[in-house]
């Protein structure tokens, strides 16, 4: 019997020339350069993105400064109500937002829905700002009759620069908290897939946020540099590659700004012999190949310990080989394309290099063809065996659907590897042993630890972790960390005479 697949409709075929959103209005960028935004499954151009110059960033910051005094004097409960309205609008447009993410980024619709859900959850958490932003006090805290208290106050205008891999979610790690605490915000979404941010800003506009409180400027390098250098931006939030995260951190900090920068990763999935392979392998597949491996939490190094090695390799490869590639808007698709032709070539180059250096492809995603999507940027699921620590594929972040398989004798060796790695974003262990899991959790130096879970992505009310070269800064996105990042603590000591 013929099988029925469902190809969901695209929200639009073409989104036109994008505009910036500054001071509560959609305005033409003064850019002289534009970038084509393509649908990675089809290769079709679906929008043109302005590479805005410094002047556009400056206009957004000025709008924020103009709005700031009144916004910070708006009571937290009133500020929260804008988020309730926005949250309802996001729910009403949930499916539309998810489809835009899938069309523009390439991830499958389930993953896109999961991402939009995350964005909504951050808005929901930020709506609790009257409780989240409370300070604390102590009667007679300074001396008898002298009370002491701490207030959390907003600072002014913040800016956020987000990557292509989660075009809806990553901005939401930042801006709802920044704005709910009484700051103003300038967003610079990825120039590779900004369309969902455009739609979200239309919803932000509908929610009625006062002009200038939230602005968006499209762009690339010049806009990022302008954000880092601007004297009136008080802090910068960033997620991207480690190389750029380091540059942004150093440059923005040199101008006295608060900075939080998430970088790259090389995450291990460690499998002990007592792990239940039939249960965990599908989860590992999701970790490695979900979002085509373009996740900073993706497992990219598979480590079988002792007797786990042979069966793990066989089962993992068998499962990976069955993944169905295609357009993310086809609901039967299990893995979509990578973001761009350039990135596809980069990922394929890593597979070539791995093979040149002695790794053996157990599953080779090079040359994959997806019927009906011959112009898409697909890389098939790949498993490289015989990888050694000195190989490039073992050391560098590939950011694609490529697993490197290692064999190790014991858990100590795996933890030592994790702790030696320059990255420290995430690490996961699969085991039935509580003792081994506890040992791993205690000793592994990574910001997000998964126990029998390959994507340990913090919910909105917890900080999104990251250590070593995976995070530069002190306070992480989301949760209480976000509230602290976007506020200054002021101590007041009072004596009534």
């Amino acid at each position: 019997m013929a099988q029925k697949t469902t190809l969901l409709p695209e929200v639009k075929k073409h989104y036109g020339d994008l505009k910036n959103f500054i001071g509560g209005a959609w305005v033409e960028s003064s850019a002289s350069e534009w970038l084509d935004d393509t649908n990675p499954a089809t290769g079709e151009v679906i929008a043109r993105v302005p590479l805005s110059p410094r002047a556009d960033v400056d206009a957004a910051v000025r709008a924020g400064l103009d709005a700031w005094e009144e916004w910070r004097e708006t009571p937290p409960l009133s500020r929260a109500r804008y988020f309730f309205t926005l949250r309802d609008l996001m729910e009403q447009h949930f499916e539309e937002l998810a489809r835009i993410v899938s069309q523009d980024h390439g991830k499958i619709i389930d993953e896109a829905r999961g991402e939009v859900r995350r964005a909504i959850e951050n808005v929901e958490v930020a709506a609790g700002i009257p409780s989240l932003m409370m300070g604390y006090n102590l009667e007679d805290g300074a001396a008898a009759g002298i009370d002491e208290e701490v207030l959390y106050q907003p600072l002014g205008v913040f800016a956020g620069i987000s990557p292509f891999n989660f075009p809806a979610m990553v901005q939401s790690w930042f801006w709802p908290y920044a704005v709910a605490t009484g700051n103003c915000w300038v967003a610079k979404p990825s120039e590779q897939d900004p369309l969902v941010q455009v739609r979200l800003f239309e919803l932000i506009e509908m929610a009625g946020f006062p002009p200038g409180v939230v602005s968006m400027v499209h762009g690339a390098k010049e806009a990022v540099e302008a954000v880092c250098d601007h004297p009136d931006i008080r802090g910068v939030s960033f997620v991207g590659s480690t190389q750029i995260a380091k540059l942004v951190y150093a440059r923005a900090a040199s101008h006295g700004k608060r900075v939080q920068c998430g970088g790259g990763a090389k995450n291990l999935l460690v499998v002990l012999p007592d792990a239940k392979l039939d249960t965990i392998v599908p989860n590992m597949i999701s970790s490695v190949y979900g979002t085509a491996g373009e996740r900073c939490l993706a497992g990219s190094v598979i480590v079988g310990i002792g007797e786990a090695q042979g069966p793990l390799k066989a089962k993992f490869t068998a499962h990976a080989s069955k993944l169905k590639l295609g357009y993310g808007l086809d609901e039967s698709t299990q893995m979509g394309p990578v973001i761009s032709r350039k990135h596809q070539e980069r990922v394929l180059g890593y597979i070539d290099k791995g093979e040149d250096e002695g790794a053996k492809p157990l599953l080779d995603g090079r040359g994959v063809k997806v019927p009906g999507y011959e112009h898409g940027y697909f890389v098939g699921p790949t498993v490289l065996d015989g990888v050694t620590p000195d190989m490039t594929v073992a050391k560098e972040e590939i950011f694609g659907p490529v697993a490197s398989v290692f064999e190790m004798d014991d858990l100590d060796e795996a933890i030592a590897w994790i702790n030696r790695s320059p990255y420290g974003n995430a690490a996961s262990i699969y085991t039935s042993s509580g003792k081994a899991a506890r040992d791993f959790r205690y000793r592994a130096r990574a910001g997000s630890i998964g126990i029998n879970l390959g994507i340990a992505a913090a919910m909105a009310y917890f900080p999104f972790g990251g250590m070593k070269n995976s995070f530069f800064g002190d306070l992480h996105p989301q949760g209480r960390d976000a509230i602290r990042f976007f506020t200054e603590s002021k101590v007041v000591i009072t004596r009534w005479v």
Partner: protein
Amino acid sequence: MSTAAPELATFGSILRFAIELEAATSAFYGSAVDVLKKDGLEALARELSAQHASRHRLLERTRQRVNEMVLEPIGGLDGSRYAFDPTPAPGDAVLARALALEEIAGRFYAETSAAARQALVEASRTFRKLGEESARNAGRLRGLSEI
């Protein structure tokens, strides 16, 4: 006429099929109200139409509450087992077709609940409850057919 066999390899495709099944079943019962009037069963047809419409809404909410941490490829479901015929039936065939729809739903939800149990616990629980409800519906319809 039966629907084409769905390809059920992702959370989204399973939810899509479930939502289509519920919408079609609700519409089927809606169309059966007049046909079953002569047997005094129009209230039952109305009740089941409303019940499946409510299930449809529940599944829409389930689809939107996805957590990507537990999204995993789903294997082992044979879509050909769940092809269904939602077209209105003539008087003497209504109960038989309704029974077939409920049996397919019962089978579909029981099997997807099992397939999703490990990763998608909330969805699995929803599927299990819907499957049990369809089994109860099927029992009621079987009882009527035997009268």
